[in-house]
């Protein structure tokens, strides 16, 4: 019998539907796998084994009663940035140690309603700030392909858990590349949906105008299944879009004939690793072989994405993280007066990167600096958005690298924040523009480390009823179907 954890969500769903196995068996297989490899990978902050088996049993009962559904009984795990009722949610930060939320995030609730099983909560850079998961207040997650290397970040736990087959699929969050970059570095598929596609209710905010929940899995097909469930309007999130667009999974059946694929010249720049560039270029050729038309395009404001992102995200986070004061939840460092208590609690419980970004954002919003920094960044943001609007008049999807490098060594960039920030250079503008992006494995470098191709699609607009996600999932699926990168798995 094959190891059940090597099944895709689609395959596992078929086996469950055919009564060839139960969700309890499948869940046990994942819990065994976690027990075996988690000590090396360190992807989880919390493992909810007991609860998982209960949920699996419930899923089996629901199925017995005639219920169907592709996620019914499928074991998943969630980045520790989405709230889960009564289950510790830390955001990778000591300031939320022991915090058990009084409610469940909408995306997780949708998955629960669909019958998914929760295996646990996944490690991340503290409050999603980072590109390596080294900024976690709890542990450093290892890349399953090379345990000396990072899995990427900030959703490093989510990417590594899928790569190491410790969950069939996971949820992450992407503010500037935090799904696509770790998907690329860990050799799995990761999707950042268009802004407003998935409810942010229960997603602990880093940067409210950029954050978006998205899925990780081994295949584009699986990612489409997960998106299908978590997408949709939520009256609790005023930024979630009113849209009837679904059918992500069914859009995969279409081939690529006539699909226009844009290749932005600004994304193939100096500093990009040779192996990465050639792998992505070969992948684009593959898309052409599959019938797509390749068109060179320009996104002229790309060079401003990094400063624009860091001003916007840090400004928003400086307010978003103000609530962590030790008063209502989380540990408190009591001092003589309330101001000192704030200072001590936040000073001791936040990590260095979080403090760096809060200070940067506080500065950018301060009287006398607001116009020069925050407001200017918003103007450039509009220009970046226009670049993409313009591009999507000429092409259906955009293909580019997801990250300029493959997985780097743990500790390699930790003392150089700027170098770390540059790892997100190809993903930041997506969030600024509110569009969607997918990272699909497209090969390995000479050291055998995975490389990801990024496919970008349009966000919401009235004249494009065709969801951007449907386009990039279709392209990614066709590509994955025509290649066999998935056959190589990390040796753990």
């Amino acid at each position: 019998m094959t190891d059940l954890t090597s099944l895709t969500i689609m395959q596992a769903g078929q086996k469950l539907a055919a009564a060839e196995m139960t969700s309890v068996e499948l869940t046990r297989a994942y819990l065994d796998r976690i027990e075996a490899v988690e000590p090396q990978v360190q992807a989880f902050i919390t493992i909810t084994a007991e609860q998982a088996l209960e949920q699996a049993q419930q899923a089996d009962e629901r199925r017995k009663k005639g219920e169907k559904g592709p996620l019914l009984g499928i074991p998943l795990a969630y980045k520790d940035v989405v709230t889960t009722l009564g289950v510790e949610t830390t955001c990778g930060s000591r300031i939320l140690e022991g915090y058990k939320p009084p409610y469940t995030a909408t995306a997780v609730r949708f998955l629960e309603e669909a019958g998914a099983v929760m295996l646990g909560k996944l490690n991340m850079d503290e409050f999603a700030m980072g590109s390596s998961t080294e900024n976690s207040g709890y542990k450093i997650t290892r890349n399953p392909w090379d345990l000396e290397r990072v899995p990427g970040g900030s959703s490093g736990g989510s990417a590594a858990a899928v790569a190491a087959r410790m969950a069939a699929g996971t949820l992450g969050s992407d503010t500037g590349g935090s799904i696509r970059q770790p998907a690329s570095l860990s050799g799995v598929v990761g999707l950042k949906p268009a802004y407003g596609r998935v409810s942010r209710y229960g997603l602990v905010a880093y940067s409210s105008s950029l954050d978006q929940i998205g899925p990780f899995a081994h295949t584009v097909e699986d990612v489409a299944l997960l998106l299908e469930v978590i997408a949709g309007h939520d009256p609790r999130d005023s930024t979630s879009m009113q849209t009837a667009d679904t059918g992500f999974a069914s859009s995969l059946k279409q081939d690529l004939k006539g699909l226009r694929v844009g290749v932005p010249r600004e994304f193939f720049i100096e500093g990009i690793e040779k192996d990465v560039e050639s792998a992505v270029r070969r992948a684009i050729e593959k898309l052409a072989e599959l019938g797509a038309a390749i068109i060179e395009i320009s996104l002229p404001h790309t060079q401003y994405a990094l400063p624009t992102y860091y001003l916007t995200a840090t400004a928003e986070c400086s307010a978003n993280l103000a609530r962590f004061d030790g008063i209502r939840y989380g540990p408190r460092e009591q001092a003589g007066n309330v101001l000192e208590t704030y200072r001590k609690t936040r000073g001791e419980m936040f990590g260095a990167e979080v403090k760096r970004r809060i200070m940067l954002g506080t500065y950018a919003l301060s009287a006398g600096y607001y116009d020069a920094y925050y407001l200017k960044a918003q103007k450039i943001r509009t220009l970046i958005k226009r670049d993409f609007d313009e591009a999507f008049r000429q092409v259906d999807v955009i293909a580019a690298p997801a990250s300029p490098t493959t997985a780097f060594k743990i500790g390699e960039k930790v003392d150089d924040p700027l170098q770390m920030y540059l790892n997100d250079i190809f993903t930041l503008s997506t969030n600024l523009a509110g569009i969607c992006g997918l990272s699909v494995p497209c090969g390995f470098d000479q050291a055998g480390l995975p490389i990801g191709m990024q496919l970008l699609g349009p966000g919401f607009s009235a004249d494009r009823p065709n969801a951007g996600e449907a386009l990039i999932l279709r392209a990614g699926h066709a590509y994955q179907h025509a290649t066999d990168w998935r056959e190589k798995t990390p040796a753990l």
Partner: protein
Amino acid sequence: MATYEPVIGLEVHAELLTESKMFCPCAVVDATSAAPNQHICPVCTAQPGALPVINRQAVEYAMMVGLALNCQINRFNQFSRKSYFYPDLPKGYQITQYEHPIASNGWLDIEVAGSDGQVISKRIGIRRAHMEEDTGKSTHVGDASLVDLNRAGVPLLEIVSEPDFRSVEEIEAYARKLRSILQYLGVNHGDMSKGVLRFEANVSVREAGSNVLNTRTEIKNLNSIRSMVRASRFEIARQTEVYENGGEVKQQTLGFNEVTGETRSQRSKETASDYRYFPEPDLPPLMIDPAWVDELRAKLPELPDAKRGRFVTAFGLSEDDAAVLVSDKAIADYYETGLKAKGDPQKLANWITIELFRYLNEANLEITDLKVGPAQLVALINMVEDGQINNNTAKDVLAIMLEDGREAAPIVEEKGWGLISDTSELEAIIDNLIEGNPDPVHSYLGGKEGLLGWFIGQVMKETKGQADAALVRDLFAKKFDTLREQS
């Protein structure tokens, strides 16, 4: 020596008494009496990941106030974050309208006494009115501070006037009128002891007749109209003295000490503030459809000025009576309910403004606390009209009604205070009087008809005022006619 005049602008914070809070489904409750932290949820306690959603009813209430204050209602609305740390502000920022308020450029006419004592009308500019959320409440107990978040997230409307006031009488008239408008709109009950209305006064003084705007101070957290008036009066005097002594007024934020009646500089730690406003990314801009504004405009209830005009023209009340009756919605409601119970407009107005007000003042009560409803009062007044009791008795009956809430008729009956209209009983008294007072009778018959009053008075004395005076007069007239014929 120069005389000085104050220049004052007011900010009024009015809670909007919607069913639910500004950004979450929690109920809006009386923060002074509800058990603490019972009306809270992930949103208003700022749990990680929770998001705000705008309350439509709060927006409607805000628009209604804007319309009542003759403001333009702005199509483009945006919320911003105002950041500062305080335990009763769970998110570490307040969601408030900053650059794009819901209403702007309005005015309110107030009535104040002119120099010759005549009532004159003065127009006060309304700069803007914007929506925001209230904070929780901190209570300090010994070394500890307790935080109640029931109030956190309750909708607030901040109404900012232009610095158009030149006396404390004007700010008082404005505050009272604004309070009454909010009551009429049904968006705020105006009970300041519940903290639903709070004030901030920006005060400066200058040489009378000058056009300069001198440095102003800001008096915060004034919880009643009375405090606002006291604090402003103190501050005007303080600043005047500073200038008279050749000093300079420092720009600062002040608190008001209710006990000493003095304003005091607040510790700079709390107030040295850069609020770092920026647009709230969790709430997309709110576009107000002009059709929505029209719909609300059409539904606005009758406001105090219109009601006052109607009372004068329709019921012939004096301007003063009408103004008093409309000043508080509860009083106007009482009056109009009384009219529906077929009360005479003028008599009812008199009874309310004289007898009821006296009682309310003495007992320190609101009209809504009365045990006597408008229909009961009208029934009492009508007993006087029907000659069942006289006016003085009616006041005594009312006193009892106010104490025990009973109807007038059974009280009159029980006390035996009904007018004696039994002709034979009165005739017996009259006969006795005529027999016992031959001299006055003689004088009367001789032409001193003014003595009739004396005779009636004697009957009233005999009957302890309960005789029906009109009837007694008739009976005397008949009696004397008979005597005249006999002689």
